[in-house]
């Protein structure tokens, strides 16, 4: 399998567009970080050394307090344990993650009310929200959910859109006309109301939300695919395949779709940023993923409600701006690399 030299050229061109290239690097870095979020942000310890044994509690079943000589059966409170070990000055030790809090955990204190401002001493680097949950933890876990939400959404909508769109473009005629009207009617269904109605009946979870969003999000790419297929289908290489006796199935999948890939790829990054924004706004309105699932929309909402706790709104806004800009820069880079428009003038 050899990569088409044209593709190599496109990749090289993308790499030469520094803004897009570095954005992609940052984006991949963020995704990898979020994949290993448990190692960085967790109330469970990374490593516990206790009477000669080494424990790695991060992944796997919970370890009851008794294991470490505590007087309870529920999951060990590692922060407590760490303090205790230090107090005892024993050879036992606990290595906690950078942010030793879970995204669901309320870190409450006796004489104060959350939200707590950022404090290095408490290891709440971005402060807590109004129920005492660590904002950095919620941002990271929220990012993970949002990004995988939009990636899965992308795959689902593109599969639907590409199949229907290329079928419309290829067969045209009545089939095309029928789906055109369907799409027009479909796009006029008020999306928000449907979500409100649905979420009043069932509590939406991740899968249901993807299903609903895909239900209303397949039209854009279908429209695009239809147009490209119309264009591609009249080209001579399709005629050549037909002359050889190729079946319609083969013509669509072996000939037409590979020729539309570059256009589909160009649209993908913008679809991803669209997905993130959509999920965030649903969460903001309270129709998205149910609490207490960490979400940027919910954080934004809190920030709005607690304007004096500037660290809530501040950190989530910065996080959103950085993420969306990164994705948009990638999209711009891809578009420029795939379809360079040389700026030509005549005197």
């Amino acid at each position, binding site marked *: 399998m050899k990569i088409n030299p*044209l593709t190599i050229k496109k990749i090289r061109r993308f790499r030469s567009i520094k803004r897009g290239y570095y954005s992609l690097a940052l984006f991949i870095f963020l995704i990898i970080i979020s994949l290993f979020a448990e190692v960085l942000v967790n109330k469970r310890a990374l490593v516990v050394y206790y009477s000669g044994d080494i424990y790695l509690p991060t992944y796997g079943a919970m370890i009851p307090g008794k294991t470490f000589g505590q007087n309870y059966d529920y999951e060990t409170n590692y922060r407590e344990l760490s303090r205790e070990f230090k107090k005892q000055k024993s050879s036992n030790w606990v290595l906690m993650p950078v942010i030793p809090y879970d995204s669901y955990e309320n870190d409450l204190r006796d004489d104060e009310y959350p939200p707590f401002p950022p404090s290095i001493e408490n290891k709440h680097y971005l402060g807590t929200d109004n129920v005492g949950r660590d904002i950095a933890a919620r941002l990271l876990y929220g990012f993970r959910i949002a990004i995988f939400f939009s990636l899965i959404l992308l795959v689902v909508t593109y599969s639907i859109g590409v199949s229907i769109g290329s079928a419309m473009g290829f067969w045209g005629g009545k089939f095309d006309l029928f789906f055109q009207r369907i799409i027009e009617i479909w796009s006029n269904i008020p999306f928000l109301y449907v979500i409100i109605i649905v979420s009043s009946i069932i509590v939406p979870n991740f899968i249901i939300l993807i299903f609903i969003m895909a239900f209303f999000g397949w039209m854009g790419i279908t429209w695009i695919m239809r147009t490209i297929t119309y264009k591609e289908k009249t080209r*001579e290489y399709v005629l*050549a395949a037909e*002359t050889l*006796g190729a079946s319609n199935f083969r013509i669509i999948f072996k000939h037409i779709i590979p020729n539309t890939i570059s256009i589909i790829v160009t649209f993908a990054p913008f679809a991803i940023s669209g997905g993130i924004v959509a999920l965030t706004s649903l969460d903001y309105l309270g129709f998205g993923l149910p609490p207490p699932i960490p979400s940027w929309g919910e954080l934004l909402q809190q920030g709005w409600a607690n304007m004096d706790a500037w660290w809530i709104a501040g950190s989530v806004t910065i996080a959103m701006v950085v993420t969306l800009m990164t994705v948009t820069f990638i999209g711009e880079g891809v578009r420029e690399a795939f379809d360079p428009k040389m700026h030509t*003038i*005549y005197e």
Partner: protein
Amino acid sequence: MHKDWPDSEVILKVENLVVSFEFESGRLPAVGDISFELRKGKILGIVGESGCGKSVTALSIMRLLPQPSGVIDNGRVLFDGKDIVGMPVEEMQNIRGKKISMIFQEPMAALNPVHKIGRQISEVYRLHFPEINKKEVKERSINLLDRVGIPDPDIRYNEYPHQISGGMRQRVMIAMALACKPDILIADEPTTALDVTIQAQILELIKDLQEENGMSVIFITHDLGVIAEICDDVVVMYAGRIAETATASDLFKRPSHPYTKGLLSSIPRIGTKRKTRLSIIKGMVPGLDEMHEGCRFQNRCPAVQPLCKVQPPQIAEVSENHFAACHFSETTSTLFDINTKNDVKIYGSGLNDGNESLVVSNLKMHFPIYGGIFRRQTGKVYAVDDVSLKINAGETVGLVGESGCGKTTFGRCVLKLYNPTSGQVSFNGNNILKMRQKDLRPLRRNMQMIFQDPFESLNSRHTIGDILEEPFIIHKIGTPAERKKEVKKLLARVGLQENAVNRYPHEFSGGQRQRIGIARAIALKPGLIICDEPVSALDVSIQSQILNLLMELQEEMNLTYLFIAHDLAVVKHVSDRIAVMYLGKIVEYADAETIISSPLHPYTQALISSIPIPDPMRSSKKQVLYGDVPSPSNPPEGCSFNTRCPLAYAECKIHEPALKFITTSDKAEHMASCHLVK
């Protein structure tokens, strides 16, 4: 460089011009160190294949190189004693359009589609003569349209470019270029996009106007025939350098550069013996990034010497006012005379056992036109209108006609790529049009097609290996290993390297891609191949390579060809019999020799007469057809040719002549549809 021309002064002088282009991969020279002179009141032809730097030279003279990628690195362009290269932009704008004008290859692209023709012409006056009032501008514009031979100029004045035909558009372009009575007209392939009968009109027009105004013309073309037709002096360019300059008569009489000789001998002419092996220039023009040290023609030259590989030849005088850039221009004169020798290979046809391979009867293809609010059918395009044709196994039938005459549609109907309105197509006894797609598919391996555009007809996402393997996969032939072996055989057969398997179409030149297209067509050893303009998108020197290959394959594999093309000389060279098509109908049908030597239909006669012959000494009066091909959606009453026919009389406007057998002396099968032919 030239000695002083005897009777005429030099109006434009190009000295040591070097032009480069900035690419992603770096800066590459497109034109390297060329010098030539344009004499006052003369037509200078620049000829060469694509990629030889002809257009770049013209654009440099106009200072219209695309910015910022195109750069004039060196040299001077002296016009009226002033150097254009270093001129301030404002001064240049006064020269452009007023002193030097230009017309382009694609008149539709060069005219602004949203402005009326009148407005575009009067713009020239408004720019260069702002003092003239509106009424006079209009008057002058209409006069101008009249002068370039546009009928009803006052009506056309208010029409948009899309409402007139290609030939008319080129006339409008010429009118615009001539509005200010320029000293120099640069014509960049002005007739390449036009049909041969329209080309003859435009050439005549340019020549008439040139004589009338006494202006100088730089005429760029790839067609030596056109050069011979109208040029006084010729510059032959090859790979960004000048290969040869001479007066036209001298060039055709005594070509000195091997490239010129090769070009002259490789084109099939109407007089060339049929089915002879054409002499070729091997290989192709090197790309900008693969220019050779030394002589740039070295890899294609049949007389290459060690010296050519190291030292670029200087341009040197061969005889008076005749210069060539070849180290051995004296000694190579015997080369390329193959066509005159007697031992030329003549290709046979395929084995003709008298069986009919393809019988088409009364085929009609009418495309509906929809209009109105409810998209009801408002008319029809009579693309193919009642055509019958028979091809015997192993022979080649040529189908020739101008663009829009329905020849491509006919070819596609025969393969049932379109669904014809009515008629029958029988291939090896199978009635194709009645068959269902599913039943037709297995039959498709016996009837293949070679397409016009080798860039479009290969899927750019597939490797050559994928492309050639596809026919085997579709028809479920062989194991993957066997297929791979077949693909290698095919590549070798059409003259390509084995390593092409893993490469992609864009890595090949046009000629090589056409070879791949041919390999795909012959992969399953078909009986019938429909060649749809297989060489018209290729350069002159590549055309003969492909034609040779096609004839070779026919002899070897016993193929039957339907050869569709607009170039009568090419069609005549490869065909046994020829059908001439006009406006969806066959107007004349006979064997190839007869149709050329004694054409009966006035359209065929005009077609033959319009072909530019690369021999300036032949000053036969051309029979130029006036007017344009009528629209196939609204064909004229009576004989479809009556609107352009020089011999038309009352009968022709009422009754349509039938295609009937003509009794000739040698009892050959000869059919024509004309009231005058009995």
